[in-house]
């Protein structure tokens, strides 16, 4: 290959003074001094989480306080990293939700395994598992990083329900 000689152009007078370059740099600096900061003082300040954010998976209750999960184990099945572990159980006959028959006796999500993909939420036929706005979870041991049923319901809270399928079913049975 032949060598191409590049001619270096001599600097102009303005360039040699460096003043235009310094001014343009100062302009950027000044703009940012007066602009609103893009960072927050985490953890004292928390960012606003947009709707549809896929945070920590949680379990939710319906507006009447019934736990929506019926332990069908579809999320356990679909979970790619196998983070979910459910122990199914029967709802006792004296419970107000006895007509639902089945509920989780234990529900564990291992947050060390979870990849926040949201497939559990997508597959849930009862709309019981939701990836909500909790984005930070930490712990000192591996065991702390496994969210059990109680923790999942604490994180999840209550979500509105448009179907109330089980309430309708109970009403139909009572009408009968």
């Amino acid at each position, binding site marked *: 290959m032949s060598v191409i000689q590049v001619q270096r152009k001599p600097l102009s007078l303005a360039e040699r003074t460096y003043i235009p370059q310094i001014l343009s740099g100062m302009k950027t600096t000044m703009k940012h001094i007066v602009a609103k900061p893009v960072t927050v003082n985490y953890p004292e300040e928390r960012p606003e989480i947009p709707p549809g954010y896929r945070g920590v998976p949680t379990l939710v209750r319906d507006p009447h306080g019934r736990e929506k999960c*019926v*332990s*069908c*184990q*579809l999320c*356990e*099945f679909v979970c790619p990293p196998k983070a979910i572990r459910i122990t*199914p*159980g*029967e709802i006792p*006959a004296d419970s107000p939700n006895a*007509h*639902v*028959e*089945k509920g989780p006796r234990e529900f564990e999500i291992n947050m060390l395994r979870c990849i926040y993909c949201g497939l559990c939420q997508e597959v849930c*036929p*009862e709309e019981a598992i939701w990836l909500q706005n909790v984005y930070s979870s930490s712990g000192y041991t591996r065991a702390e990083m496994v969210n059990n049923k109680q923790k999942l319901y604490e994180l999840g809270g209550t979500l509105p329900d448009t179907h109330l*399928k089980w309430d309708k*079913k109970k009403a*139909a*049975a009572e*009408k*009968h």
Partner: protein
Amino acid sequence: MSAPTATAATPDLVTVNIDGRDIAVPRGTNVVEAARLLGVNVPHYCYHPKLPVVGNCRMCLVEMGVPAVDRETRQPVIDPATGKQKINWMPKLQIGCGTNATPGLHIRTTTPAVRQARESVTEFLLVNHPLDCPICDQAGECDLQEQAIAYGRGCSRYIEDKNVKPKHTQLGPRVMLDDERCILCSRCIRFTKEIAKDDVLGFIDRGSHSTLTCYPGKQLSNNYSLNTVDICPVGALTSTDFRFKMRVWFLKQTNSIDTESSVGANTVVWSREGQIYRITPRRNDEVNDTWMPDSGRLLYKQVRAENRLTTETPLADLIAQAKSLLTGAAAPGSSGMGDSPMGSGGMADPAMRTGAAAPSTDESSVPHNPHGRVARATQSIALVASARSTMAEQYLCKKIADQLGIPVGAIHVPAHLGQGDGLLVSADRTPNTRGALLCGLATGLPKPQLTQLAADIDAGKIKTLLVINEDLAEAGITPEQLAKVSIIYLGTHANATSAAAKVVIPTQTVFEKDSSFVNQQFRLQRSKAAIPGHPGTHNDLVVLSHILVNLGGHDFAGSPIAAWSRLSEETPELAGLDYLTIPETGRVLDSTRFAHLAFPETEGLHYKPAAERQEESGARMQESEARP
């Protein structure tokens, strides 16, 4: 019944055409089965190959045509366009399950009319079906769920209220009924009536209010009640034991054998992560059709039973203790260690070798004959082997007995007898009595009481007992007699014998090991390990082969394959067989060597006692002689 077995002796084949393909099937085969032979699925709910045909679900509707024949001349009508015989297609659809193959029958299963019929039936079935799939145990193995995906609309046109029916009916101790899910196929009713002969189920009320129920004051409590759960095409009948325990799609299926009796019903063990959740029957038309007794389904509970024996002592130490007891009893004589077969025995594990050598008291005093066998110095050892052991285990027991010079009279195999129920629980409650006979462990029919052994212990002739998974207290040995002998016990669960034993080596259940059994028909069947061994237990075959090696015998490395290679060489009935080639449906062995034995089994499903079989064949011969 339409199963193609009735005409198996004289094949009377008829050719039918299904979706344009010809197939020859035995006369009497129905269209659903004929289509199955071609790999064409005709969906159905009420039809079951082992139950009478009722044709009430209408899901198997197909288009049907017969070759045209001229009414006057009785000559085939030829279609001029094709040059073949014309097919007269019936104007309406016919049910496949209730139509038997006739010569030239034409079937179409893929036409728009058939698809529309299936969609309509599915829609009607779903009208009153609850949306229970997330909580229904049948989900994942539900015919209705599958057909709803194939032929369902995806959304309901039904705006009225669905029927409300009882959802928690306990039909019997093991079966739960959810009436809302029932699609009224009547399989369970036909099963209890025709197979179990316990006619307690029936429908009451009419139309969509029809309800499955038990006869007042009765229960579905017979020993075959859980078969109704298996054949229920939806989740109406569920097993109380399996209810809400685990979804079926997580469970691994392993082919196994029901070991509760000599019937050897073929089973599938469903497990997940080393835990068994349920046992269901596996179809074998020669043994158990598609059924199995309820009692056999609960056997998996023995794996995690409270009285399961476990140990933390290393196996090498246990074997060493066993060996010192056995060789100590075999001969208080003298011989050098020089020609000990230990060195050449091929004991792979050096820890085992040192472990075996360390605590032994009089190991160096084992005399050997030139063949490397322990000399027949005394006969103070008796072996109590088990008809519950697998073929390979029994063979190794026999080898150990030979090695120790235990005479035939001191090998005992206790029998476990009960009442045969005429179906799938036989009088012999062990899975492998025939295996013990084949490999020479038992020389005659086992007896329930070991009176000879008791007498020998009382007489002081027997000092050491090697017991394989048998409770001697059950076999008539008193606690005083047990206290008189040193016992080496290999077994799965604690009992009086294990409590009295000097050395206890915990072993494994049939679910934890590969095994093979010979059932009452002399059918050799294989059962695979479904789960890993329970912690603190050891595979029987490994334990036995370690004992055998320590006594100077051949090393079988604890593998059924190695044991089988020798076993099939030495047993004429098993010639040419090896462990891995035992077919899934079993192999019937030659039983002429044992024709003189009066086995305790009475007639059952697919089994007739030898005496009755002979009478029958005699009668048939007389008939055939009388005919000309």
